[in-house]
């Protein structure tokens, strides 16, 4: 909310600068988002006493003045105005001063006469749009004083962000109270003078059946008003506070709400039918609000109604039909206390926020309900005529928030803040409206009715912390807690070390993207209030996100990308839902540029598979890759599930060409994912003695049928070669010239070793024969000549 400096000063005689006030506000817990200066201070304009005035010898309309500005010699000034006389006090802009209209004052000659300054009008000081002559200052204006200080020309507006607990500070007086308490200054009294009522005007008939939600309701009739614009000073104040003037009645209510914090409402009495009742809405009841919306209300909503219809949603907004217009002459004025929780709930249901609802839901001061009513009546009748009837009062404001107190221990507050609580702080708390009674360690604090946010000792400790100042609290390291530190999860670090860039993509994707890799099975989790259709579902696969990132980068001249992401996927389950920790990879295009030592190459399945194998081995795991043609969104023949032991823990493969094309990617795209929650703990490496005897390596090259799985071949080698075999792998793969159609040439390199002796020619011959026999038996494969 925006608070003009000049308005604050109506409640407390602040003596410091706006910047100092801003710092004080921050220290007291009121965030200052900005300080605007609609009128800057005017400097160098002094109060001058006209000692003599003679006509200019060469110009009829000019005068030559001698003006005393408190210096040894009076200034000679040439002046074109006519409304001043000897003995008048006027503002004198001295040489070097700059005026709000941008004019810089210099020594000048006017028709041959030297002028050492300029006498100013109201408009030249920025006080009025135009002016007929000089501003004549009061006869007691101190000669020589800065006019800016004397007239309090400087204005500043504090833009405050009031925290939701401080409803009492959503008005000028509340902020003034904190500043006054802090500075040790008195808070000005509120004008509580009673107004004369007109016995001929009947008090409105009001019945409250929803006492729970509306414990206090006041109404009064004011008749014979002539609605006019509010006075200029009020309009200026409202505009600085960020509100638009509407009409005199509405403006007075806005002004008092901003000033004292009590929202009120005025109904056009001639547009009401019958008695007023404050009650629960009927289910489906219509309400046409002032903001043009037509609502169907729910049973339980708090409404103000007349005999025919709802005239206000309690504490939130009046109806269009019952509002005050320029033609209004008779009004019913309402001032009430609406229960914060009710206003908050209704406001949320209808997404209907108003200045009134913001205050009611944070809690207004019950003691202010009647005072504000009196102030409003007085201002309205004074400004717009008319006379007021007696007040109808339902409920008792004194029963709300009254008599509350907290008992606490000074020592405990001191321990929890880490600083002593000086007795001097009690006085500040008292000025803030609390009743403070300290007896040794015991502290009894009476809570004022406007502080809805204070109810427990911790709230009191917060008040003391504000008063003492957080800067005065020392910084102390607490004793260490003894806990066992966790091992850091290295998953993503190991993946990145394999040459992949880690990305972070949103957890939500579009429903179309959801369907790329997951069939429609009713287990999606959709957002009720998504940002957009493109972000409407919690992802069940990390791949659409990675594809989007790949597209983004390939569109920006990257020849290829290698990406990895660690994040969660989300799915409904029988038990409710599940969040799965997932690691996902994507490789496509040339992930390496042409180099002097090697040419660029398109990433393929085995680049990604190798990365996964390395990543798994770093966690002490080995994966088995089982061809699987039925993985949705992946190309049959280039996709596999990944088994760790017996657990299916992941998938890998080439993205279906149509899907890749939908992401504008021409090159083959390879993706993989591992379910981190399904990964077993890897085996800790155990010490094994290093071999003492040399190993023997042999190569055998066979012709196999083209579709033979190398995994099956190596398994057959391992089971057929005998106990001496320690390793076997494919070292060469060839199909083409010299190899018969439908066949493939595979080179197998195997290693033999014995821990107890050096191997002989016979040993390796025996193993070779065993392997040859096994390949023949299992696959019908023959040695290649």
């Amino acid at each position, binding site marked *: 909310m925006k608070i003009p400096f000049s308005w604050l000063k109506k409640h407390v005689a602040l003596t410091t600068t706006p910047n100092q006030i801003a710092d004080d506000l921050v220290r007291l*817990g009121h965030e200052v988002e900005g300080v605007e200066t609609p009128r800057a201070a005017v400097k160098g304009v002094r109060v001058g006493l006209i000692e003599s005035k003679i006509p200019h010898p060469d110009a009829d309309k000019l005068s030559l003045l001698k003006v005393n500005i408190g210096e040894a010699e009076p200034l000679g000034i040439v002046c074109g105005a006519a409304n001043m006389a000897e003995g008048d006090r006027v503002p004198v802009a001295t040489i070097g001063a700059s005026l709000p209209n941008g004019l810089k004052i210099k020594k000048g000659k006017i028709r041959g006469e030297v002028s050492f300054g300029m006498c100013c009008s109201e408009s030249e000081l920025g006080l009025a749009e135009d002016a007929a002559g000089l501003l004549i200052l009061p006869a007691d204006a101190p000669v020589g004083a800065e006019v800016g200080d004397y007239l309090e020309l400087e204005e500043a507006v504090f833009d405050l962000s009031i925290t939701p607990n401080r409803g009492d500070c959503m008005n000028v007086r509340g902020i003034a109270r904190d500043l006054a308490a802090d500075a040790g200054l008195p808070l000005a009294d509120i004008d509580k003078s009673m107004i004369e009522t007109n016995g001929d005007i009947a008090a409105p008939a009001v019945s409250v059946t929803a006492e729970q939600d509306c414990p206090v309701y006041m109404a009064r009739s004011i008749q014979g008003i002539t609605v006019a614009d509010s006075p200029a000073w009020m309009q200026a104040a409202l505009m600085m506070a960020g509100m638009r003037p509407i009409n005199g009645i509405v403006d007075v209510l806005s002004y008092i709400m901003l000033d004292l914090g009590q929202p009120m409402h005025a109904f056009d009495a001639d547009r009401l039918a019958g008695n007023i009742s404050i009650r629960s809405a009927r289910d489906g009841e219509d309400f046409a609000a002032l903001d043009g919306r037509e609502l169907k209300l729910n049973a339980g909503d708090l409404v103000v109604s007349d005999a025919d219809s709802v005239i206000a949603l309690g504490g939130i907004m009046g109806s269009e039909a019952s509002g005050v217009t320029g033609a209004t002459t008779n009004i019913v004025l309402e001032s009430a206390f609406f229960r914060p929780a009710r206003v908050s709930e209704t406001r949320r249901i209808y997404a209907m926020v108003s200045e009134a609802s913001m205050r009611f839901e944070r809690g207004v001061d019950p003691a202010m309900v009647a005072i504000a009513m009196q102030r409003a009546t007085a201002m309205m009748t004074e400004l717009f005529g008319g006379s007021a009837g007696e007040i109808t009062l339902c409920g008792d404001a004194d029963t709300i928030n009254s008599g509350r107190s907290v008992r606490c221990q000074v020592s405990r507050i001191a321990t929890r*803040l880490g600083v002593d609580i000086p007795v001097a702080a009690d006085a500040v708390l008292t000025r803030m409206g609390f009743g403070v009674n300290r007896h040794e360690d015991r502290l009894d604090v009476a809570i004022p009715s406007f502080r809805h946010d204070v109810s427990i000792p*911790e709230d009191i*400790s*917060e008040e003391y912390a504000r008063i003492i100042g957080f800067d005065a609290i020392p910084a102390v390291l607490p004793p260490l*807690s*003894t*806990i066992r530190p966790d091992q850091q999860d290295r998953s993503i670090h190991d993946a990145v070390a394999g040459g992949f860039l880690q990305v972070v993509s949103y957890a939500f994707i579009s429903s179309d993207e959801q369907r790329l890799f997951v069939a429609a099975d009713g287990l999606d989790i959709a957002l009720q209030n998504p*940002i957009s259709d493109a972000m409407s579902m919690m992802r069940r696969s990390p791949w659409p996100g990675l594809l989007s990132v790949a597209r983004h980068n390939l569109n920006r001249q990257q020849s290829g990308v290698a990406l990895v992401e660690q994040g969660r996927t989300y799915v409904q389950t029988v038990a409710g839902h599940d969040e799965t920790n997932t690691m996902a990879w994507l490789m496509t295009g040339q992930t390496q540029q042409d180099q002097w030592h090697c040419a660029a190459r398109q990433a393929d399945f085995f680049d990604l598979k190798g990365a996964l194998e390395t990543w798994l081995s770093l966690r002490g795991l080995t994966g088995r890759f089982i061809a699987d043609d039925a993985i949705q969104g992946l190309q049959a023949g280039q996709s596999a599930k990944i088994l760790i032991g017996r657990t299916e823990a992941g998938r890998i493969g080439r993205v279906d060409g149509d899907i890749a094309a939908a992401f504008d990617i021409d090159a083959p795209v390879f993706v993989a994912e591992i379910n981190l929650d399904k990964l077993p703990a890897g085996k800790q490496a155990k010490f094994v003695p290093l071999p003492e005897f040399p190993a023997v390596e042999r190569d055998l090259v066979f012709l196999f049928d083209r579709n033979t799985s190398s995994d099956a071949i190596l398994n057959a080698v391992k089971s057929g070669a005998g106990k001496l075999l320690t390793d076997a792998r494919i070292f060469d793969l060839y199909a083409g010239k010299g190899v018969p159609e439908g066949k493939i040439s595979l080179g197998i390199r195997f290693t033999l070793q014995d821990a107890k002796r050096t191997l002989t020619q016979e040993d390796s011959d025996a193993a070779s024969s065993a392997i040859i026999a096994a390949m023949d038996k299992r696959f019908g494969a023959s040695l290649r000549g």
Partner: protein
Amino acid sequence: MSEIDALKDRLESLQAEALAAFAGAEDLNGLQGLRVHYLGKKGALTEVLKGVGKLAPADRPVIGKFVNQTKQALAVALDAVEAELAVKAKAARIEAERIDVTLSGRKSGSGALHPVQNGLDELTAIFSQMGFAVAEGPEIEDEFHNFDALNIPAEHPARAMHDTFFLKDLQGDDGQPMLLRTHTSPVQIRAMKRFLAESGEPPLAVVAPGRVYRCDYDVTHSPMFHQVEVFKVDRDVSLAHLKGVLQHFLSAYFEKEVAIRLRPHYFPFTEPSAEVDIGCVFCAGKGCRICKGSGWIEVLGSGMIHPNVLKSVGIDSEEFSGFAFGLGVERMVMLKKGIPDLRLFFENDVRFLSRMGVAK
């Protein structure tokens, strides 16, 4: 000329011829040929010695000695030349093997951690070293953990400020709506319950990193971002301790002594509450565009854990107290690295990622 003199003559001229030949040898191979030619079994010297048989027996020892001297002289000369040629040969090989050491090395693709990951790692490492245990919690939460247990009842104005994403199709206990957590604070509740179940009572000290969600998307807001929640509960934990931990951790993270300022604020789950500013890291507190001239930058919200929060997990707030704070990881990384735009984190441009992914 006697037989013996003639033989001596031949040996002398052979020696002179051989020495000249050695000196002219161009490489070790040629020299080896000369060695065979002169000193080999069928070499020139052996040829000369065939004439010894014709000598008188008395002359034979004389000429024998002479032959040995010649042999010796040739061998010494050969070794000297050989050594010289070996040095030359090595120098030639070194020259031939010269490479351009400024050519780039053979690298596999260089990966990098996402800058947010780097930030998370740095932050959690600092707190781990200070004795805080790492905990995580679910991103899909119920209203109880995200709000109620944190002292934010349904009608509370603060609840509306959270811009919560609600989820269709899911229901929590008692039919509560499910939502995406708006902060990492629910981990306070879950971790406190879990730690208490394990160890019965405080002390407990936890750092909880994770993703959070707000229904807010513009230049300075992302619907998904990362937070780190830190809290400690023990006997006599004070606001002064909170200040101490903040001072230590912020200086450790920014790798220099930073000034901190606590401003009273309001959060439902802490009392007292404070927003924490650091002296602007861009202008050293002098005032610049980024700190809007104030010299201070807001970095996180903090406070003493509200008794209602402790109560909701069964901790006696008379006996124990605690502090808690939560910080936005993206914001911390932006401040540390001078990254101007939040959106860069989620655009995942590889040029940005590879540049920012380096540790320092």
